């Protein structure tokens, strides 16, 4: 998979420059608990000495967190929370019906119907040829890889794959469409009737269909006095004309898969969760980069609401008027836009007004949907079968071969992590955030299962590795500007495995390990053991050494010793702290604690 693909962090992070500074401050305050966790996670000790992030215990809440937590980090928690209450109130009276239409760019090297590159281009109109610019006499030849990826997407979404599929012409006149028709699929799509399971609730969102089509060119509209360049670009038009448009055909003919869901979602959170899980599935199966900022994942949402009363008293006459939302550039935007639209429509109905069938744009600055156009009647695309491409017959053996080639998908991974490795739902979720993190985790596990110590188990080690990845490592990645996942750092699965084993066998303490993590992620290292030995940071478990340090501290603090012995046992923490400090953090904490209690309790 292309490394340029960003994880959700980077996606949402991109939105930040547009964000009012005021909200950034506010966010800092609102998110204390989350950020504090990543900087100074509360630490508790396990029997094996591994660190466990406190968030681990929140696992049961993972479900709801999964959809919203990531966005919370980026400063929208407060707004969401405020909105969420209003939404909850509205949704008591109205039922929302949300359906999603997604376009993903299939990760082929060449375009859908010609041999031009699909790579991102440094200049306009360099990845073009007579076919994708619609020149006379040219004919389309479908890309094999496009069909393969479309079938795989269909399989990953549990669809029925058509054994016979055809292409159709969708006619619409616009300057971004070189032929003024798009080669798409109409009544025989390649995949139909599948579903996607939301990781949070397990709710199934039905997939009505998925079909292949080609992207259009990109247009740049410029308003204002025509400059030099403009008059060249608009050759033939009078230079006095004030505006002009430029067309870049690099994207024209890039293969897309359009995925249409049933109207099965009921809130912005569900629509966003659907988008996130779809993105994960398609990334894991290497079907698409699914990068919202680059446009390789585009989500349009259809939404209507209807009074619940009507449902109950049987006067319900079907769904309300549908509004289409566009310009949703992040999952965050999807959630907020849908919620905003639910509120807007509810307000209209409450005032006794009607919802118009229209297309609205999400305005990120205003945090509101804005009217784009009113749909007076359905567009007439005058579909007819594409005569230049014969019926495509897919052999069952071919479909099965593609099915067999599909990797384990995130839902299956999550289930396996929980069932076989005993991970919490939360950790399983974090580890399947993006393919790079999953690969890192699985490679680490591979190293850790090579020689399982007698005292440990795969499950313990997997939990330890998962905690590191979901905790300190994730936190550090987040701080690094140029890293999307742990794979972009110097830390390797082999080193993490070594670290886990060193903690397990008591060579280093969890505290030392915690200090080592940033270093391991910033500078190349061939062996953690060599590093800690060179730095003299191995754990001290020699009782005599520890007892000597305890005696020193007791000697210097006779009042506290006395107070302890008079019943102020809370002071044990003070002594442990002082002793640990003197041991430069290298003392075995369990042993130290035990010895401190023993010595303090011993009457001398």
């Amino acid at each position, binding site marked *: 998979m292309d490394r340029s693909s960003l994880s959700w962090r980077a996606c949402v992070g991109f939105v930040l420059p547009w964000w009012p500074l005021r909200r950034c401050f506010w966010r800092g305050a609102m998110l204390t608990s989350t950020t504090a966790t990543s900087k100074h996670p509360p630490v508790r000790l396990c029997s094996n000495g591994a660190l466990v992030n406190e968030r681990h215990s929140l696992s049961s809440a993972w479900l709801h967190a999964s959809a919203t937590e990531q966005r919370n980090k980026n400063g929208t928690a407060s707004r969401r929370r405020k909105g969420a209450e209003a939404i909850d109130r509205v949704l008591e009276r109205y039922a929302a019906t949300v359906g999603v239409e997604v376009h993903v760019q299939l990760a082929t090297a060449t375009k859908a119907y010609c041999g031009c590159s699909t790579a991102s281009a440094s200049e306009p109109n360099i990845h073009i040829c007579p076919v994708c610019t619609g020149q006379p006499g040219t004919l389309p030849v479908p890309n094999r890889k496009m069909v393969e990826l479309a079938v795989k997407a269909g399989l990953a979404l549990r669809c029925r794959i058509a054994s016979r599929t055809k292409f159709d012409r969708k006619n619409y006149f616009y*300057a971004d469409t070189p032929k003024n028709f798009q080669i798409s699929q109409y009544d025989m799509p390649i995949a139909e009737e599948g579903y996607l399971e939301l990781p949070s609730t397990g709710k199934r969102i039905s997939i009505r269909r998925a079909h292949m089509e080609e992207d259009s060119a990109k247009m740049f509209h410029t308003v204002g006095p025509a400059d030099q360049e403009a008059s060249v670009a608009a050759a033939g038009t009078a230079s006095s004309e004030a505006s002009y448009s430029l067309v870049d055909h690099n994207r024209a003919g890039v293969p897309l898969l359009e995925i249409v869901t049933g109207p099965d979602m009921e809130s912005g959170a569900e629509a966003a969760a659907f988008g996130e899980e779809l993105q994960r599935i398609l990334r894991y199966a290497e079907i698409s980069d699914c990068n919202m900022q680059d446009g390789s994942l585009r989500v349009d949402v259809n939404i209507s609401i209807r009074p619940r009363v009507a449902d109950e008293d049987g006067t319900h006459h079907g769904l309300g008027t549908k509004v289409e939302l566009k310009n949703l550039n992040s999952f965050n935007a999807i959630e907020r836009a849908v919620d905003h639209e639910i509120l807007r429509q509810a307000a209209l109905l409450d005032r006794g007004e009607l919802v118009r069938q229209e297309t609205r744009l999400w305005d990120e600055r205003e945090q509101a949907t804005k009217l784009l156009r009113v749909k007076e009647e359905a567009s007439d695309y005058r579909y007819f079968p594409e005569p230049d491409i014969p019926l495509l017959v897919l052999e069952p053996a071919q479909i099965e071969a593609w099915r067999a080639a599909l990797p384990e998908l995130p839902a299956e991974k999550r289930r396996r992590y929980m069932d076989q490795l005993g991970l919490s739902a939360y950790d399983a979720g974090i580890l399947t955030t993006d393919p790079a993190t999953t690969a890192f985790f699985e490679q680490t596990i591979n190293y850790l299962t090579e020689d399982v110590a007698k005292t440990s188990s795969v499950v313990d080690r997997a939990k330890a590795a998962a905690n590191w990845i979901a905790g300190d490592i994730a936190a550090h990645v987040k701080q690094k500007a140029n890293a999307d996942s742990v794979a972009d750092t110097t830390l390797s699965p082999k080193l993490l495995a070594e670290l886990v084993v060193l903690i397990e066998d008591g060579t280093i303490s969890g505290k030392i390990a915690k200090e080592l993590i940033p270093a391991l992620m910033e500078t190349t290292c061939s062996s953690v053991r060599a590093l800690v030995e060179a730095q003299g940071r191995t754990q001290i478990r020699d009782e005599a050494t520890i007892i000597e340090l305890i005696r020193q501290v007791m000697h210097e603090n006779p009042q506290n010793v006395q107070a302890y012995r008079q019943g102020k046992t809370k002071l044990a923490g003070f002594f442990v702290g002082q002793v640990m400090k003197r041991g430069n953090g290298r003392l075995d904490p369990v042993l130290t604690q035990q010895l401190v209690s023993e010595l303090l309790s011993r009457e001398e």
Partner: protein
Amino acid sequence: MTGFVPRYHPDEILEANVAALVQKVRTGTWTATQVAERYLQRVRETEPFIGAYLLVDDQLVLEQAATIDQKRQRGEPLGLLAGVPVSIKDNLLTKGFTTTAGSRLLQRYQPPEDATCVKRLRSEDAIILGKTAMDEFGMGSSSENCAYGVVRNPLDLSLVPGGSSGGNTGGSIRQPAAFCGVVGLKPSYGRVSRYGLVAYASSLDTVGPMARSVSDLTHCLTVIAGPDPRDLTSLSEPTNIHDFLRETEEALSAVAKPLRQVRLGIWKEALEMPQLASHGRQALEEALRTLTSLGASIIPISMPRLRAACAAYYVLASSEASANLARYDGVRYWQMTRRTRTLGLGAEVKRRIMLGTFALSSGYVDAYYRRAMQVRQLVKRDFELAFQQCDYLIGPVSPAGAFALGTKAGVDLYAEDVLTVPASLAGLPALALPCNPKATLPTGMQIMGRYGDDVGVLRLGIVYERVTRPLITSDEQ
């Protein structure tokens, strides 16, 4: 304008058939340059009367000829069409020659590459003589709809030459061939690659050759036919038409009744059409007698869906055209949209775009486009049933032959295609050849074969030609 084009004095080069010409150029008896110069001279004589060409560039022609001559001088082998002048209909892309498809809209369009068939002709050392006039985008049956002027029938300048003459969508090869007394083959759909053919109706468009004789035409088809990875609708089976026909010819010349096993179906409704000219009917009956004398048996075949087929053809062709021509919006060619489509396109093209747009529109698509698709299936089935009883179907090419310039337009003109359209809808190979070559205005006979049986249709044509026009097929000229 009435009258006739200037006759030429007996001239070996102009009279040579393809086989003879290739042989003489290969052996050096004639240089390709000599051939090219002679043809250019003849074009200069006739063009003021006929107006068949949109572009003839002497320099481009002579450059190609010089290249062939140099190749021979270097001792390199020459191709199957060495030195043979070929004119290309202006809806086939030709690198170096402007390609307009007869439309004002493409008046300056310089194709970035050759159409596949043109590329194949060039690689076999044919000389591209020029680009021929045509009804705009192939929409017409009389060559009066060209943006650059009308074309006249070389046999009688007061008559139309037929149209649109090329990419045989509904009869544009067979009908002009019949009107002008030459032979034309609409091969099976997919036999010749459509890559580089300016699309009119993609599911019907078929590239094919016109020539003086079936034998000449076969030489051309041999070169241009064959699968093309850039056209998925091209037939994948390999074609060794040339070898196959050579063997057939040799075998045929030895047999007295070469058509002994052949069952010929006679298209009853076509022969009984009231519009069919009586001299045409007589000529066809005479041709049938000739074929019978060669051993063929004759079976009357009923194919009653004539009118429905023609209507379906116009609905389907216009529907596909409305999409195919949508790209000429001025963003990429000519001027911006409104002016482009107002001024750049002729009346007939606009009529068909509107017709097709209507036929595909929601609410009408069932009544028109889908119904036409059903008729197309019925026509295909009619042919399948017919070919259970016979091997080839014979009928006239056009109801009344060449008509006077300016006398037919609109639906009257559409009706001209009634006899050629069924084979187009079914994608069958169909050959048009003159059945009374000695008459001043010859009548065209049409031989239709099973899908893919281009060779069989040509073989029948060659047998007939050997008997009726022995000189034209002779290698000893």
